[in-house]
């Protein structure tokens, strides 16, 4: 048993850190936020050039053959800079499932492009109302030319840039299928929406026919299993992002409160301030260990349903507390959007809620425990 990162993992993490620090300084992030469409393509290509977009993809499609744990390190580093690039959507939501379940044609069509930085992917996991990703409401009727998909998928990340969006749907035979939908199809309306973290998202209104070849894994793919796989990676990826957001926010808060003096001494030497910063630190530790544990178990194929829920519970519950504490300790600077800390707050709140806030994860976990009696 060894909780340290391996040498290779440290190299990945350092490389990612270097790229994000070099190419996503605050001024750049601000610039993309104000002037662009919320997607920093320059940074995206830097990541591709450093082979980081293929990090968790198999070598046969141009990747480096690492896995989810290493992807989490990349996401953590992205979170630290709140950098506007669709890493989570493309890799966790799109590429990992295709690499795992895709037909040879699907893999070769999409994954090399991902590694090269030419293809953005995403998945549509949110559901209106009860928001249970495991019960998709889009319907898929088998038709002459493939599958007729109908329904609405809210708040799909980066849908407006995605070459394909993975859409889970309920088939007419009662099974679940995951379909590779092209948002540019005439039958797909892409309605861009604003989101809390100011990153690009869109609602998809789907009424289109996709070819049978665009069912993930082909005719025999087990949609139920694929959907579980997707949701678990999506959740753990969010946890990693959130960890990065929170740890950087705390570091910035420690620096800010140590640099600002009131009543003749640094703010952070007021115990009420210092202890709130310490509380925030204490809260990131559970986020870190539960995320690593869940990622590691998933990679090793161990039972992980509880561990994933636990990780997302902490990412949501502790994560929102951390960003609140940091925002609060920044005083007026927290509200001023010329100062960077507010972005960490907004990302933290977004990550908290996405795919279910803390209480949702607890309710699911409570059910599992009651059932499994663990």
């Amino acid at each position, binding site marked *: 048993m060894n909780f340290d990162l391996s040498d290779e993992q440290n190299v990945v993490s350092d490389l990612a850190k270097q790229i994000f620090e070099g190419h996503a300084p605050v001024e750049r992030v601000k610039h993309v936020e104000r002037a662009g469409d919320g997607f920093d393509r320059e940074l995206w290509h830097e990541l591709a050039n450093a082979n980081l977009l293929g990090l968790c993809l198999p070598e046969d499609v141009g990747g480096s053959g690492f896995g989810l744990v290493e992807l989490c390190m990349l996401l953590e580093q992205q979170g630290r800079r709140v950098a506007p690039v669709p890493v989570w959507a493309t890799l966790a939501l799109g590429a990992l499932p295709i690499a795992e379940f895709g037909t040879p044609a699907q893999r070769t069509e999409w994954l090399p492009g991902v590694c090269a930085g030419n293809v953005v992917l995403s998945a549509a996991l*949110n*559901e*209106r*109302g*009860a*928001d249970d990703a495991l019960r998709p409401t889009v319907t898929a009727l088998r038709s002459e030319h493939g599958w007729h998909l109908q329904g609405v998928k*809210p*708040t799909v990340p980066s849908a407006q840039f995605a070459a394909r969006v993975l859409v889970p749907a309920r088939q007419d035979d009662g099974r679940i299928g995951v379909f590779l939908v092209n948002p540019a199809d005439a039958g797909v309306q892409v309605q861009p*929406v*604003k*989101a*809390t*973290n*100011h990153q690009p998202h869109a609602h998809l209104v789907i009424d289109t026919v996709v070819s049978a070849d665009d069912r993930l894994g082909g005719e025999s793919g087990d949609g139920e299993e694929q959907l579980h796989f997707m949701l678990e990676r999506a959740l753990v990826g969010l946890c990693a992002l959130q960890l990065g957001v929170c740890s950087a926010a705390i570091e910035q808060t420690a620096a800010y409160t140590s640099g600002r*003096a*009131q*009543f*003749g*001494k640094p703010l952070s030497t*007021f115990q*009420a*301030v210092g202890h709130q910063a310490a509380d925030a630190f204490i809260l990131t530790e559970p986020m870190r260990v539960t995320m690593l544990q869940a990622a590691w178990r998933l990679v090793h194929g161990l039972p992980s349903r509880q561990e994933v829920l636990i990780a997302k519970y902490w990412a949501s519950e502790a994560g*929102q507390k951390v960003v*609140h504490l940091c*925002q*609060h300790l920044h*005083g*007026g600077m*927290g*509200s*001023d*959007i*010329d100062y960077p800390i*507010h972005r960490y*707050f*907004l990302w933290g*709140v*977004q990550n908290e*809620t*996405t*795919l279910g*806030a803390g*209480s949702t994860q607890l*309710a699911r976990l409570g059910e599992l425990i009651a059932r499994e009696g663990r």
Partner: protein
Amino acid sequence: MDIGDSPEEAAFRAEARAWLEANAQRRDPAKRHKQASTDVEQDVHARACQEWQRVLYDGGWAGLTWPKRFGGRGGTPWQAAIFAEEQNKFDVAVGAFAVAHGMVAPTLMMHGTDDQRGHLDAMLRGDDIWCQLFSEPEAGSDLANIGTRAVLDGDEWVINGQKVWTSGAQHSVYAILLARTDPDAPKHAGITYFILDMRSPGIEVRPLRQITGVAHFNEVFLTDVRIPVANVVGDVNGGWKIAHTTLSNERALIGGGNTAWSMQELIAMARHFGRTNDPIVRQGIAKAHSRAAVLQYMGYRMRTSISRGEMPGVVASTMKLFYARHWAATTALALSIQGADGVLWGDSALDDGLWQQTFCGQYAVRLGGGTDEIQGNVIGERALGLPREPALDRDLPWRETRGSGR
């Protein structure tokens, strides 16, 4: 103890309500307006406040508790509370006069010269909006650390410095201003309180765009701005005590405000998202309801002590803290009721992003009138009699503390 309307109070309430019915539209309690965001919206709001204030004035309802000699109605704090409760049920714009009526007026009545009190009438008529130029980048919680300098030149003071977190500076005709007139005195003893005409040359107002998307606050840069000596309120170098009058009124104002939402709104939202049977949501609504009840009762208590002529220091701090926590918890509840839709923003979100805006707005509420930490100190010292934390810079000449203050 008597927690219902007395007959006189009931009669006053009926009178107020009748007048309001005749002069304003009732508000739908399950609906709420978003905070004015754009410059245009903010201008419209300020003008609407001025118009409604004029209607109040013409109807004899302005300055409800102000003495008649200052043009007010000479009413009791209880009447003001009842009028506010009733007015809150109508669709009228208030808020732009919070500084003028809530903070400047009590200060001028207590400390102003007769000439200075001449401003009171224009405030009451809705003509002049005022703002407050107190905080600075290096003087937030430690307000006495202000560095804006005022130097006497003939019969004028010349002001140089930067202020921040100023609400409504762009609509204001006058401001109250704290500036340092004796840097060699200890920090509390070298501050003077001024009235500043915002139309004077040398004033630059820059809006601060906030996380909520609104620019409610401004930075104000003062360069060689001249103020006649007649505009000093109280004594030169005696401004700190006067600022205290202003600030304790601010605290009472924030804590005593009506809650920004009704329980109906939350219940309607839960119904909209099909979550009225979710036990966790229900628990959240029950908690919010319990907090709202506490605020209402605390408000009664505060008004009781005001009507006894007491300055409600501890009660105001307690309410302010409680109010801030209520705001934070209830807006978080609202977002969680929205589920996946809670991450939407602006016009993509429910009610045009009103709830997201209010949620993010909690930080302005927590800061205004003193941070949570400052309220904690006030309560510890005044309510519990705890000894003060030793301050390192209290008795040193301000000039000498300046290095460590930056």
